[in-house]
């Protein structure tokens, strides 16, 4: 596969992630911070995000087990952190799920929290899988036009 074809594939994959509502403008903002000296900046940031979010998911799961009653404040705080991290990488749909979860926290709905958390985990896993494929393809295709910072 020639370089241009690879790059077109990468661009198409990225566009698809946007079309599906999975990513937002923040992802583009991060890409614009890449340059020759920092060609994998976005992937590095996303990897850090995975580390933080895995830890937070575990904490939330633990907190959801400590019922009677659920500590909604604690859950809301944990989810605030999760949301922040997701927002920082442009994870649009995951961020929306975070907001929903927080609404259930505020409403004091244990059932709502549990349901929306399951949904959130699904969205998170789906995005993670797609991003992993995206970065793999991007690395194969080599530096792209988006890495256009002149410094």
């Amino acid at each position, binding site marked *: 596969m020639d370089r241009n074809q690879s790059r077109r594939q990468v661009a198409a994959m990225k566009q698809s992630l946007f079309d599906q509502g999975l990513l937002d403008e*923040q992802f583009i*903002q*991060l890409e*614009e*911070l890449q340059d020759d000296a*920092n060609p994998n*900046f976005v992937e*590095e*940031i996303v990897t*850090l*995000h995975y*580390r*933080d979010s895995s830890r937070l998911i575990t904490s939330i799961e633990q907190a959801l087990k400590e019922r009677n009653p659920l500590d909604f404040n604690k859950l809301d705080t944990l989810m*605030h*952190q999760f*949301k*922040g*991290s997701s*927002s*920082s*990488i*442009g994870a649009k749909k995951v961020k929306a799920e975070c907001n929903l979860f927080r609404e259930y926290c505020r409403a004091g709905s244990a059932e709502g929290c549990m349901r929306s958390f399951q949904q959130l985990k699904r969205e998170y896993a789906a995005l993670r899988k797609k991003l992993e494929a995206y970065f793999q393809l991007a690395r194969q295709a080599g530096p792209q036009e988006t890495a256009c*910072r002149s*410094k």
Partner: protein
Amino acid sequence: MAAAGDVFRQGLPEVGAGKLHVLAVDDSHVDRKVIERLLKISSCKVTVVESGSRALQYLGLDGEKSSIGFDTVKVNLIMTDYSMPGMTGYELLKKIKESSVFREVPVVVMSSENILTRIDSCLEEGAEEFLLKPVKLSDVKRVTDFIMRGEGKKGVEKSHKRRRSDDCTPPSPSALHSKKSRLSI
């Protein structure tokens, strides 16, 4: 050896003569990495810490009496997240503004939550600006350019900032614009 106050009163680097030194404070590892990159691209020297207490430690404001000969660290701008465990960005802002050495250092507060009362209290406490997260390169460039030009520093330009004193004049258009741009969705 210059006294602590003098070290700061040497003022900002003249445009082109040096880089701004920015202290960034955020408990999120992701956000620390991002803000560091944004600041480096904006030609700043960056120190990043993970909490308000670490920030105070770095600035020498943690109450630890250092040995004689402690040179105050020089910082031209502090950018802090609002929601942090332990000390919030607001509490850090207050401590900085209470310090005779660092009270003139501009402090920018960052938050993912667009809460008017929060924005108001930060501005009232002397924050230079309140930025909504995720922070963009254009935000950072605007803030650092502003500071490099030496605007919003001492003197007349600062008079519109509401203080705890009985100054009741309404915010100037530029402060309103800062607020307004934060409110757009």
